[in-house]
């Protein structure tokens, strides 16, 4: 692992070198070089858009195999609410939770339970930090990373509270240690993830020193394993659920903000929409809002690239599932411990990965070259050079990772000139 970890990566053999992914990437992190896509790791925010768009399925997310369970003596599953949206006609989340135990887990801890704690903490934080309004949700790791590298003025608005999955992990670990007497390393806390960004959040967490999650499984791999086990669970359902409407609601867009019991919020989903909201927010266009919920995936977590069901269908399913649940079932118990633990421990610092120079002087000089180069290029953004736009190619050249003749129009002119020169030489000889 280098300085930058990303879960999204390329399976080279499958890559045909087409330009679908470079065009789709919201941070322009991908180039095609020597016929293969290359991801610039420091630019990648693990949104998974390239996985979605790649027609050859060459983009993959790295996650653990279910065999990872064998490494631990006692295993706890952390199922997120988006998981429940994957199944047809599910009336009771306990069927999924019981099936997880049949799959090899010793216990389960619903992430939606921890989400209800985060909601309570957030309500208090928002009320006590008027000066930081609008507070920006930090549950989606892609959004947090995006802000860290591209929106330095918004870092101060980030909600400094752990994502539900991290709070679930630390609570579940403590519970397991108390129950079994085992040392921490023999306990495996395993998250079932809808997206690659959560894998990255475990390996390279932001805001907390380290993650209590030991392994991350992909929802799409767990799904087929659970189906037969759920059938078997129907007759001996264990009462394992700890969340209500609020917790389950977190699985789709608007659920987190809705849990704050105020109307004064904005919720946006889909990475392009998120970027637009952040741009406007940076220009102080909505300072009257209390809270902003942002999800990189359309539809929220149910729209993650590691899910199975259509996100909008999954959202309907979650809505049905919530219908007769109490508003919330997990609450802060009043002891301060819980609260202190749920807060971020580390400051988030701006990482200007997109900078063109080491200081402003160099930045200005390089930007001047970028502007000059852009005037030379045809402005077609054809992608033939391997960069998504002419401007991106210009930036690459300035950064020293590409050259002018990567542009096929420049190359054509160059060849024309060359052949003219040659024919002139030939004529002279005659």
């Amino acid at each position, binding site marked *: 692992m280098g300085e930058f970890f990303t879960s999204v990566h390329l399976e080279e053999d499958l890559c045909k070198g087409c330009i679908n992914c470079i065009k789709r990437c919201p941070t322009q992190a991908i180039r095609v070089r020597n016929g293969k896509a290359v991801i610039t790791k420091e630019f990648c925010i693990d949104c998974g858009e390239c996985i979605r768009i790649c027609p050859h399925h060459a983009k993959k997310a790295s996650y653990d195999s279910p065999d990872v369970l064998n490494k631990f003596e006692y295993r706890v599953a952390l199922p997120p609410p988006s998981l429940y949206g994957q199944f047809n006609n599910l009336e009771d989340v306990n069927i999924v939770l019981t099936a997880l135990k049949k799959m090899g887990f010793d216990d389960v801890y619903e992430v939606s339970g921890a989400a209800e704690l985060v909601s309570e903490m957030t309500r208090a934080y928002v009320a006590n930090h008027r000066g930081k309004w609008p507070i920006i949700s930090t549950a989606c790791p892609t959004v947090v990373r995006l802000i860290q590298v*591209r929106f*330095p*003025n918004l870092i101060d608005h980030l909600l400094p509270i752990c994502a539900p999955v991290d709070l679930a992990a630390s609570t579940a670990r403590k519970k397991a240690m108390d129950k079994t007497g085992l040392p921490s390393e023999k306990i495996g806390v395993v998250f079932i993830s809808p997206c690659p960004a959560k894998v990255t959040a475990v390996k390279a967490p932001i805001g907390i020193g380290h993650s209590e999650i030991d392994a991350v499984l992909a929802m799409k791999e767990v799904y087929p394993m659970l189906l037969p086990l759920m059938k078997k669970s129907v007759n001996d359902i264990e009462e394992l659920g700890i969340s209500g409407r609020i917790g389950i609601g977190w699985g789709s867009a608007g659920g987190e903000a809705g849990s704050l019991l105020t109307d004064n919020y904005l919720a946006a989903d889909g990475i392009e929409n998120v970027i637009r909201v952040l*741009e406007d927010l*940076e*220009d*102080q266009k909505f300072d009257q809002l209390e809270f902003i919920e942002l999800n990189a995936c359309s539809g929220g977590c149910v729209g993650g690239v590691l899910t199975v069901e259509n996100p909008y269908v999954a959202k309907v399913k979650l809505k049905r599932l919530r219908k007769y649940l109490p508003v919330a079932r997990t609450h802060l118990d009043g002891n301060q411990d819980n609260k202190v633990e749920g807060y971020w421990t580390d400051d988030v610092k*701006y990482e*200007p990965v*997109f*900078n*063109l*120079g*080491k*200081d*402003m*002087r*160099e*930045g*200005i*000089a*390089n*930007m*001047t070259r970028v*502007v000059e180069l852009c005037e030379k290029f045809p402005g077609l953004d054809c992608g033939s050079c391997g960069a998504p736009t002419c401007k991106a190619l210009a*930036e690459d050249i300035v950064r020293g990772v590409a050259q002018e003749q990567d542009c096929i129009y420049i190359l054509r002119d160059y060849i024309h000139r060359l052949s003219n020169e040659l024919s002139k030489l030939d004529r002279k000889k005659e």
Partner: protein
Amino acid sequence: MKDTEDKITLFYKIPGNDFTRAGEASSNVKSKLKMMGVRPDIVRKVAIAMYEGEINMVIHASGGTIEVIISPEEIEMILKDQGPGIEDIELAMTAGYSTAPDNIRNLGFGAGMGLPNMKKYTDEMSVESQVGIGTTVTMKVKII
């Protein structure tokens, strides 16, 4: 575009006929400033001041031009238009005073904070205006 070694000039034509494109120039400047390594608090000031100016041009003057001169010491914005001009500059600088038409107000603009915000977010600002000829606003944000 003429540029000395540590100065860059960015030039924008602001179309006056298309309100949906208002704000594009300031957004472009913002992203370039960030890439050049300009301090985040400076970027914010420039982006807000220029956005307000750009919107003003579109609302009142059917467009114009914006020149942004960036050096390591300061960022200067020169906004020129051939609009109706401002009759009483002092009055226009008053928070809450607006001459924006209703259809613009319905879009959420015209709160009368354009010029006051431009002044608030810059270190120097001057407005030269002649009725029937046009307006030039010069703003500076100091870095050092």
